[in-house]
């Protein structure tokens, strides 16, 4: 098992960590999810038949585990809001967290892009990260997400539009404050 782990780690760990981090934007959660992904991968490695490439198989599991994480978070959030009956107020409170150090030291434009990822859907964010941060091809991205290539292209286009809109709005707001 250790050998399998080491092989996977050496080949994909940096990309895997990167993918999950940009999906959840929090290092602690990323570490938990990464561990969970390896557990699932190592448990099912014997049954991997090589129908897809090892890389796309690993990332499709990573995406699956990450989406499960989001769902659990949502359920948890809903339970808390239901308990306090704060739903209306609660939903209007934006989830804010400090920028990771690596992002905080970047210029304003990159910070804006990073923050704008929050406005994308999970699907859009997956496509953006796989295509532009991980440099996956359209075909590889389609395989990871279990989509057709045309859906990847459409989602990619919508995601970029979404990011542009967010950045334009933020820029307009900043300009009006300056004036």
């Amino acid at each position, binding site marked *: *098992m*250790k050998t399998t*782990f*080491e092989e996977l*780690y050496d080949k994909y*760990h*940096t990309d895997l*960590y*990167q993918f999950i*981090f*940009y999906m959840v934007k929090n*290092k602690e959660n*990323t*570490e938990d999810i*990464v*561990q*969970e992904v*390896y*557990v*699932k991968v*190592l*448990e*099912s490695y014997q049954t991997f*038949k090589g*129908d*897809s490439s090892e890389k796309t*198989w690993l990332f*499709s*599991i990573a995406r*699956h*585990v990450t*989406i*499960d994480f989001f769902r659990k978070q949502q359920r948890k959030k809903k339970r808390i809001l239901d308990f306090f009956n704060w739903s209306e107020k609660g939903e209007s409170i934006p989830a804010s967290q400090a920028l*990771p150090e*690596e*992002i905080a030291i*970047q210029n304003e*434009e*990159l910070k804006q*892009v*990073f923050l704008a990822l929050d406005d994308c859907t999970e699907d859009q964010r997956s496509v*953006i990260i796989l295509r*532009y*941060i991980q440099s996956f091809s359209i075909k590889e991205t389609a*395989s990871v997400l*279990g*989509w*057709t290539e*045309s*859906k990847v292209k459409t989602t990619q286009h919508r995601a*970029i*539009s979404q*990011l*542009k809109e967010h*950045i334009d709005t933020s820029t307009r707001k900043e300009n009006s404050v300056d004036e």
Partner: protein
Amino acid sequence: MSDKNNDFKDIENKIKKLPKIEDNTPKEVLFQKIQNKMDQSEKPKRSSKRWIIPTMATVASLFIILLIAQSIPWNHVADQQESSMDRNEATTEESTEDSEISDSAIVPNEQKEQETQIMEDESKDEENNDLSESQSFENEITNEEEFVYHVGYEKNENLFDVHTAVTTNEAQYAIPITLIDTSGGTDVNYYYNALENFIDPEEYGIELSLLEGLEFNIDALSTTGFIDVSSNFSSASSGTMGNMLEQILGHMLVPYGFESIPFEGSTNNLGQLAGQNPLPLSVEEEVPYKYYQAGEEYSSLLVPITNANIANIEETLEYMKEDEEPFNVFKSIPNDASITTNEISNTTIEIAVESEHIAENQTTLKMVEAILMTAKSFGYQEVIFDIGINEVGTYDLTTEIKVPLQINPKLLH
């Protein structure tokens, strides 16, 4: 337009410039954490069998004492030490085999209940009960290794059934397959839109291509959503293929409670189905089950025979004695069988089968599972078998057997 393209390029370039985020956890530490997690998830399985080693050691010790007592005079001490060592080795082997059993995925409830019972008894009266229980485990080990099961009884809150369907290679019949997701996820689109990642057509000699060009956007829990038809979808162009697609979608979606499903996108490509949007869904009931096997090198699958037009369960069971070789579909009941049925209640039926071929073997197990699925399709919940043997595989035929939860189950992850 060109400005827009430039803007898009600009955003794309900025995304590419986002920094690499380093994981500061050393590889060794990460591996240790993963191993701990894996150990934790395995612990309950192990603890349930923890009694095996001390028990077998106790039994071995008692046996040695008995040998010593019988072998007076006491001048063969060295020989006895040797035999004691042999037995200890045997104990270790048995406990290893046992841990393999705990990893097996799909076993009927009866066995699970037996295992649970064993765990309960363990705390009450370990020393008295363990010998006979470990003997019965040995029998199960043999069965477990020999038999292949085509139905499942898996049910717990962490499992989610993904109902899918494929077609035989001649597209004569639709074959339901149940993918069992152990991760607790409920997103069926993840599976439906990449079935080839989870079902290997080469393993079964089946076709998945009918669904190519359809993209599922559904929520199985709320039974909402739609199927997007792409411009290159052409699988329903003929009436036969349209009917087959209808059957497949029925097998996939009806178990979740869908009564119909809307199509979006290039719906003109749906052929005869285009006029029915949303498409009403159903699964044919009261059908016989046989086995599809594309060739010797392929695994077999249970298949509901949907064109049989049969009036009652007895006729249906008779129909299960016939091969349909041109379609690689084979009988599930021996053709010399004499069959009688007796409806005990709305939910329970007694089925007696007499045949020279019935024995504790794979063929009989396949017959039992095909009969269980057939009974289920007639609305029964339990079957009482009278087939001249008391058990086959993990099925205890001396008592009523519940109909299965999953057909052609395939455990994922």
